[in-house]
C-alpha cells in the first residue's frame, strides 16, 4: 500500500496543481484530506483552516484534494476528475470546483473508503454530461462510508449517481437533472444506490429522469428524507429493498410519485418493511415516457405498491393526482398469465419473490382531489368500468383514490395459488413467504385516512377493490369459471372496505460512519418520526 500511496501523490501533484499548496498540513501519514480527525501535531481538527463552506454549510478544510481548482466555466474537467478519484487514500475529501463544467466520460470510483466528494453547493457546482461518451455520470462500486454532496449532475446519458455494493452511501444536497421536457431519452435513474447497505439519501433534487428520480434497489437499511423529486417517470422508488423509511419528501409532477416495488427475477428476490410517511405526493400527472415495468405506471398516480409486502403508508399528503392517490396491486395486474408463472418466475418464486402482497397498511393520509382524469393502459379496463355502470354501484363513479386489485388475495384465499407453495425455497418459507389464505396479519388495511376534498366534492374520495378478497363474494365468472372484475367501490371514509388495522412497522436504521441516522438516530426529535 505504501507504494500505491507514493504513486497517488505523484499523480495528484501533476493532475491537480492546487493540492500542492495544501500538502503541508497533511503530514506524512498519507491521509491528506482527512477532515475532523486530530492532526499529526496533536492539534484538534477544528483549528485546521477552512478553505470554503458549501451552500449547505459543509466546511471544506485545507488539505482537501481539489479537482481542477482553476477551471473556468465551461471547461472540460474529465481528466482531472478521473485522476483525482483513482486509487484514493482512505477518508479522502475531494472537492469539485465552483461553476458549471463539462465532463465527457463516466466517472468511476472503486472501493473508496470514507470518501467525501463535494462540490460547493447544489447550484454552485454543476457538471454537464450532455456530451459524455460514457453512460452513468458517476458510479461508485464497492467501498464504504461514501458521501456525495453539494453538486449537480446534468444530462447523464444513463444513470446520474449510481452506487453499487457500497456499505454506507450518503447522498445529500445533490441534484440529478435532465432539463426540459420529460422525454424517453432522459437517461435512466437519477440517484441510484443498488445492492447497498446503510443508504442515506437526503436533501437531494431529482428532476427529469425517464425512470426513477430517486431509486433504491436491492438494498437494506435505508433512509430517504427531505428530497424533492419532480417531473420524473417515478419520483421515488424503493425496489426489492428491506428496512426503508421514506419521509418528509416531496414528489410532484412525476408520472408516479412514490413507488414501492418488488419485481421478479432479481438477485435480492424481495423486499419489505418499507415505511412511507409524512411525504407530499401531488400533481404526479406527467405522461409516462418510461419503459419496462415502470413504463406501466399510470400517469396520475400518487403512490403505488406493487407486489411488496409489509409496507406502511401514513400521514402523507396525497393530492391532485389525476388517476389515483394510492394503488396497491399484485403483480397479476402486470402479468396475468398465471399458468406461465412457474416457467417464467419459478426460480425467483423459489427465492421468495411473490406476485401477491400482504400487510400493506394505509392510515392517516390526507387524500384530496385525486382521480379527476384517470388514465394509463395498465388500468384502462378498470378505469372504463368505474366510469360506466359496470361497477358495484351501477353508475359512473369517481375513480378510487385508494385502489386495491385484490386478485392475489382472492386467489390465495380460494386456494388457487397453493401449488406455488411447493416452489418456495426453504429460506423464503422460513421468512414467512407462502401462498396460503390470508390471515389477519396479511390483510391490506386502510383506515383513519382523511378526506381532504372540499365540499361538495367530499363524496368523490373512494376506495375501490377490483376483486373482492372473499371467494364467497364472487358473483361473476367467465365461461371458464374465472372470476371477473367486480369493481367494488365505496366512499373512503366510513366504509367497510379494507377496514382493519395492522401492527406498526419498525423504523429503518442507517449506520453511516458509526453514526445512526433516521427515526432512531439523528431524527429522534423529528415530528414525522413521532407519527
Amino acid at each position, binding site marked *: 500500500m505504501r507504494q500505491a500511496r507514493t504513486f497517488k501523490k505523484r499523480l495528484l501533484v501533476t493532475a491537480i496543481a492546487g493540492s500542492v499548496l495544501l500538502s503541508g498540513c497533511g503530514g506524512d501519514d498519507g491521509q491528506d484530506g482527512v477532515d475532523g480527525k486530530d492532526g499529526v501535531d496533536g492539534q484538534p481538527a477544528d483549528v485546521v483552516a477552512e478553505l470554503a463552506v458549501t451552500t449547505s454549510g459543509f466546511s471544506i478544510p485545507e488539505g482537501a484534494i481539489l479537482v481542477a481548482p482553476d477551471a473556468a466555466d465551461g471547461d472540460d474537467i474529465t481528466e482531472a476528475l478521473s485522476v483525482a478519484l*483513482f486509487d484514493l487514500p482512505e477518508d479522502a475529501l475531494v472537492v469539485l470546483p465552483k461553476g458549471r463544467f463539462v465532463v465527457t466520460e463516466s466517472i*468511476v470510483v472503486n472501493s473508496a473508503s470514507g470518501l467525501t466528494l463535494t462540490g460547493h453547493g447544489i447550484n454552485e457546482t454543476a457538471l454537464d454530461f450532455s456530451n459524455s461518451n460514457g453512460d452513468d455520470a458517476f458510479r461508485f462500486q*464497492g467501498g464504504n462510508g461514501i458521501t456525495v454532496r453539494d453538486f449537480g449532475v446534468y444530462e447523464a446519458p*444513463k*444513470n446520474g449517481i449510481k452506487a453499487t455494493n457500497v456499505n454506507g452511501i450518503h447522498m445529500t444536497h445533490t441534484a440529478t437533472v435532465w432539463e426540459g421536457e420529460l422525454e424517453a431519452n432522459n437517461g435512466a435513474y437519477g440517484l441510484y444506490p443498488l445492492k447497498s447497505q446503510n443508504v442515506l439519501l437526503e436533501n437531494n433534487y431529482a428532476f427529469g429522469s425517464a425512470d426513477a428520480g430517486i431509486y433504491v434497489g436491492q438494498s437494506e437499511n435505508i433512509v430517504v428524507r427531505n428530497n424533492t423529486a419532480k417531473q420524473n417517470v417515478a419520483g421515488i422508488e424503493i425496489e426489492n429493498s428491506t428496512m426503508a423509511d421514506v419521509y418528509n419528501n416531496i414528489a410532484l409532477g412525476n408520472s408516479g410519485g412514490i413507488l414501492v416495488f418488488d*419485481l421478479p427475477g432479481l438477485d435480492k428476490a424481495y423486499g419489505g418493511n418499507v415505511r412511507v410517511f409524512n411525504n407530499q405526493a401531488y400533481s404526479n400527472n406527467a405522461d409516462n415516457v418510461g419503459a*419496462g415495468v415502470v413504463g406501466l405506471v399510470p400517469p396520475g398516480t400518487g403512490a403505488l405498491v406493487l407486489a411488496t409486502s409489509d409496507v406502511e403508508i401514513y400521514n402523507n399528503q396525497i393530492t391532485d393526482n389525476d388517476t389515483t392517490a394510492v394503488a396497491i396491486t399484485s403483480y397479476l395486474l402486470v402479468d396475468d398469465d398465471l399458468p406461465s408463472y412457474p416457467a417464467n418466475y419459478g426460480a425467483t418464486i423459489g427465492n421468495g419473490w411473490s406476485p401477491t402482497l400482504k400487510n400493506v397498511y394505509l392510515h392517516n393520509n390526507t387524500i384530496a382531489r385525486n382521480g379527476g382524469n384517470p388514465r394509463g393502459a395498465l388500468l384502462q379496463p378498470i378505469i372504463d368500468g368505474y366510469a360506466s355502470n359496470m361497477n358495484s354501484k351501477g353508475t359512473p363513479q369517481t375513480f378510487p383514490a385508494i385502489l386495491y386489485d385484490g386478485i392475489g388475495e382472492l386467489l390465495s384465499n380460494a386456494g388457487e395459488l397453493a401449488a406455488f407453495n411447493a416452489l418456495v425455497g426453504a429460506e423464503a418459507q422460513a421468512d414467512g413467504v407462502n401462498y396460503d389464505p390470508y390471515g389477519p396479519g396479511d390483510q391490506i388495511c386502510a383506515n383513519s385516512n382523511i378526506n381532504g376534498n372540499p365540499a361538495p366534492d367530499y363524496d368523490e374520495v373512494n376506495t375501490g377493490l377490483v376483486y373482492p378478497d372473499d371467494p364467497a363474494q364472487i358473483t361473476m365468472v367467465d365461461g371458464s369459471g374465472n372470476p371477473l372484475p367486480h369493481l367494488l367501490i365505496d366512499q373512503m371514509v366510513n366504509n367497510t372496505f379494507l377496514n382493519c388495522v395492522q401492527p406498526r412497522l419498525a423504523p429503518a436504521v442507517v449506520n453511516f460512519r458509526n453514526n445512526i441516522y433516521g427515526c432512531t438516530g439523528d431524527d429522534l426529535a423529528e415530528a414525522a418520526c413521532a407519527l
Partner: protein
Amino acid sequence: MSNNHRAIAAVLGASVLLAACGGGGSGDSSVDEGSGLTGSALNASAGAPTGSEGSCSATTDGVNWDALMTEVCPKLSDYNLFADASDPTSGPTRGGVPYDLSTALFSDYTTKYRFVFVPEGQQVGYNASEVLEFPVGTVIAKTFALPENTAMRDGAELVIETRLLIHRTDGWIALPYYWSSESDATLAIAGKRLTDLSTVNNQGQALTFDYAVPKAADCTSCHSIVPDLAGPDDQREQIFLPIGPKARYLNTNFSYPDGTVYNQLQYWAEGELLTGLPGDFNTVEKAPVFDDNTHIPSLSDAELNDAARAYLDINCAHCHRADLTLPADYAGPAGSSGVQLEYNRNYADSPGKFGVCKDPVAGGKEGYPYDVIPGNADESYLLFRVETTDSRHKMPELGRSTVHQEGAQLIRSWIDYLPRASCSPST
C-alpha cells in the same frame, strides 16, 4: 508426446542459453531432450520479484519484476516485458508465454496479443471453471491493435493500447497504457479517446468509430466480483480478478512462434507452468472457437447454442453472473440484475436467468418488452442492447463503440433457435 516435448525444448533453447546470467536457478541449465522438463519450465530463468521496492528506471535483464510489484510506471517499457520495447505484439521477455482464447470478448474488432508472465519458480494452479489461479507476481499483458481489415489480421494494423493485469501481494491491479508514439506506450489513468478509427470487417463493411482506451478505474467495472452484502455490518470488499484465462477458453490449440501447434493447457502443463490439470483431459471444460470467420448458418443447433453460450459468457458473464462456482456470497457486478449468462449455467433450469420473458428492470425500451423472446429476436431487448451504440442502452457498457456484426448475428440466431416460451409469438 515426446515430439512435443522436443518442440517445447526447442522454444526454450534461447532462454536456456541466457539462464547463466539469470542465476538463482537449479544450476543445471542444460536441456535433456526428451527426458522431461526439469529446469526447463516455460518460465525458467524468467526471474522473479525480490520483495524489494522496485524502480521504473531500473535496467533489468529480464522482466522488471520489482517495479511491476510496487510501482506504477509512466511508460510501458519501464517494465521490460518485450524484447523490442516498441513491439508489444511479439517477442516477450524471457518467461512470457503468448496465449489466445477460443472465444474472446469483442473489443471493437481489435486483434489482441496476450502474454502471461509468471515468475520463475512459480506455477499456475488449475481451476475447472473459474479463472486459473495465477501466483502473486503474475503479469498478463494484452495489446489491442485495430487491423485495417479483419479478414486479414496478419496485415496492417494500428497498435492502440496495452493493458496490464498485475498480481501483487495485496491483489490484482490493472494499468492501461496507450501507444502515444510508435516507440512506447504511456500510462493512461484517465483513459484516452481516439476518434474516427476505421476498419473493414469480415462482412466487407467499412466501419468508422471512436475507440476508448478505458480509464484505470474502469477496469474494475468488469474485472471484479462483488460481495452480496449480508447485513449492515458486512464490510467485505469487491475482489479484482482476470476474466479470460479460464481453462475452457485456453483449451484450444495455439500456434507458437516456432511453428508448434499445441493445446495451450497441455503446453502450459508440460512446460511446468500449470499444475493440477486433470489427467483425464476430456473432463476439462472446453468452449468452442467462435470468431469472425465462423459461418453461423453452417452451425448445427448444438454448435450454435454452444457458440452463443460461450459468446455470452465471455462478453457478458464477467458482470452477469451469480452463484455457481463463485465464492459464496459474491456475484458479478451485474449479478443483481437477475440476468446471468455463464457458460456453465443450465439453461433449462431457469430460462429467466437468460432473460427469457423477463421484464427489463433498470432499463427497457419501447418496442422491446422482454430481454429475450425466443423466436422473436427483433423485439428482444438483449439483442437490441448488443446492436446499439447508444450508451443509455448498449451492452457491454464498456469497451465497445461499434457493433459486432458477427456476434450480434450469432445472438440473433440463438434467440431464434431457443425453445419457445410463454412470451414467444404465437405461431
